[in-house]
């Protein structure tokens, strides 16, 4: 006999003046291999077509469906109901502007973050279409890819105590991105340049080391290591700035 699951879903439509924030309950019979992507779409198709939520690739690749599932930020598409109790509470990710119900505006947040940390390869070299690519050790390429696997789902921000207290905190996602550029030989920025973008309380020095980010990262990116790496480099840079004649 399959279970009947109770879903408590956060409902609020900010553009509807009659809408009041609150939890709404739905019931759905559990079927084999059910995940939250399928369950939420059934609820929308059959019970309430107005529920707002975000899915895109539904394969754990694009990062669209981050939400708080029974108190823990995660990707809904790859959350199997078999791993959940009879009652499932679903809330939008905190730290992002609400679009409606479970849908939040991660696009604006990440764009602003990428602008702030100048998230692109900085180089004086012009691209020459006639030239062969610059050689790179494959181990370096694989190391960069490891950090590039971040899908900007927002779970690390939702799980971060600093980000919840401080709206301008850049979060583990930004520190991981900076670490990625630090190990990329194509990026010609030095520690001084990185210090300018993350050597602050909005950046690496705002991190309290609680590491909720590492616990919830759906891509299992070693965020703890990246935070430590960036903190160490930026810490030295901070000390260097105190020395006479150094910048």
């Amino acid at each position, binding site marked *: 006999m399959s279970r009947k699951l109770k879903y408590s879903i956060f409902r609020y*439509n*900010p*553009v*509807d003046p009659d809408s009041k924030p609150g939890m709404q309950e739905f019931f759905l019979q559990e079927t*084999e*291999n059910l*995940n939250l992507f399928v369950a939420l779409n059934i609820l*929308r*198709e059959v019970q*309430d*077509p*107005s*529920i*707002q939520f975000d*899915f*895109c*690739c*539904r*394969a*754990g*690749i*694009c*990062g*669209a469906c981050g939400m708080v599932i029974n108190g823990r930020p995660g990707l809904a598409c*790859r959350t199997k109901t078999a791993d959940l109790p009879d009652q499932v509470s679903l809330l939008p990710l905190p730290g992002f502007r609400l*679009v*409606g119900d479970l*849908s939040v*505006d*991660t*696009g604006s947040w*990440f*764009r602003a973050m*990428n*602008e702030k940390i100048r998230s*692109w*390869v900085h*180089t004086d*070299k012009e*691209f020459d*279409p006639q030239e*062969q*690519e*610059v*050689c*790179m*050790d*494959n181990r*370096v*390429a*694989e190391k*960069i*890819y490891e950090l*590039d*696997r971040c*899908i*900007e789902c927002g779970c690390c921000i939702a799980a971060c105590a600093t980000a919840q207290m401080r709206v301008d905190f850049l979060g583990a996602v930004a520190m991981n991105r900076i670490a990625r550029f630090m190990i*990329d030989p*194509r*990026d010609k920025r030095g520690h001084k340049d990185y210090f300018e973008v993350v050597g602050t309380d909005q950046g690496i020095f705002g991190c309290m080391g609680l590491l909720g980010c590492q616990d919830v990262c759906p891509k299992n990116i070693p965020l703890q290591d990246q935070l430590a790496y960036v903190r160490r480099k930026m810490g030295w840079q901070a000390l260097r700035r105190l020395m006479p004649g150094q910048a």
Partner: protein
Amino acid sequence: MRVIYTDLLCIGAGLAGERVAIEAAQAGFETVCLSLVPSRRSHSSAAQGGMQAALGNCIKGHGDCPDVHFQDTVKGSDWGCDQEVARMFVDNAPVAIRQMDYWGVPWNRVVAGRSCYYKGGERLEKEEPLEKTGLITARDFGGTARWRACFCSDGTGHAMLYPLDNVAVKYGVQVHDRTEALSLIHNGEQCLGAVVRCLKTGRLLAYLARATLIASGGFGRIYRASTNAVINEGGGQIIALDTGVVPLGNMEAVQFHPTGIVPTDILVTEGCRGDGGTLLDVKQERFMPGYEPEKAELASRDVVSRCMHEHMARGLGVKSPYGDHLWLDIRHLGREHISVKLREVDEICKNFLGIDPAEQLIPVRPTQHYSMGGVRTDKNGAAYGLKGLFSAGEAACWDMHGFNRLGGNSLSETVVAGMIVGRKIVEFLQGHEISLNTGLVRNELKKQQERINRLMSRDSGERVYDLRNRMQDILMDYVGIFRNEKDLNTAVDELREVLHRTGNLKLSSSGTGADPELALALRLPGMVRLALCVAYGALERRESRGSHARQDYPARNDRDWLVRTLACWPESRDLPRLEYEPATRIVEIPPGDRGYGGGGVIS
């Protein structure tokens, strides 16, 4: 009337859209990209295995060059492609990939020395020479003569999209995400922009632009089972078709990928087979060598999908509650290879199937994957029918894929076409001004607002989701891998009926704000029209070519059908008007044998 003006409006912010946008922004033009989702969530991010570019760096790619890539692409297309475009594509792919490298993509590199690899089930050895160390390497893919698919593990699309979006940020390309273009603003000759619905608030806006690009990806979601992201519902093709003057090319050319997983239809990359994975049947025996002795699992996708379908029809599939399937076996590649080179596949298997691919078999079957058809353009990316309208990427029918796209050629197309079409748009913008007729803009806004008002006020009518599901089921049942006149007639008749019923949609929700049901209700009639272009085009094409396999016309007919279908939709009709043009004007390689797939040819 709320109006946003820009030089270039890109509808879509995946790899193709942003690559074009960057070209325009670098030339100093103001550029706005519209996107249903934040740009980094575009379906480009889901491309896994690789990007084809003839670099010839790795030992198994030795001797590769654009000419060999060209031959593979033309054969892969079953001579359906425009050979002039295919030539431009292969010549520019090495430049495009090196530019992506310059922008920060962490391509896998050649490692000198001996290493083992698998072909079919067999373990072989290769030795990479010292002088190529550190250059971009490649893996094997289907339908190619050399190893040419350059890759970042099996997250290549993601690993390209992030650096490209970084460059877009650097050059100030604006991305207005969570917006949906509902219609193009045009006067029958010139495109002037689009009417756009904000998916955060539900508000309508007019975007006016000197040039407009459609780069919104494919339309796989008109099928019930598709590897595509849920946003791939053909929005760009719909607004082009709705103009009545812009034709869609080869809409019947729909690709089914051999390895969608069962259930959930999520893709596992062709790289699995490229790296030596095999397909097994219910007896856990390889069957592809029996159908394709030479290429086996690495024949082109259309061929492998057909063989799998036939093999299951012979009762050799594996029964499951979700229908028959076959097995993909990558166990012999070893845990280390899987966790480094097939990382997404590893995650997908564990998270969605609950299996460990290093120890267990992966259930797969052919699944709708790619739309070769789309907005028909010339070689510069300019759409037929409207000046100032362009298209690139999967949304377009440029047309380098013809009737079957090779694996790794779509990722490559996004950035190569983006580069070439981007340059052409820059030239166009340098010499092109528009005069604005505010009445025209106001009318188009009003027309779309009235559609919304009608949907929100109707008291009784058809349920939106029911009709969408009906359309999807019709395509699944009658317009699949194998096609015939009877099924296609049924599909056309039933889709016409569904189209009529979409004129009477009723919302169950209020429709206020970013209401998702309203968004689908606005899109659905257009989706059914796309479905009709596919089904009707397939019915009329009385031959088999690439992915279009007619049981009643099994031969490729170069005598009568070496042509591209052009589908236009004149207002108030319930079927597209089909016209045909030669598949290619320039012929470098005359039609011949593909070297796989068998089948007769009428010449």
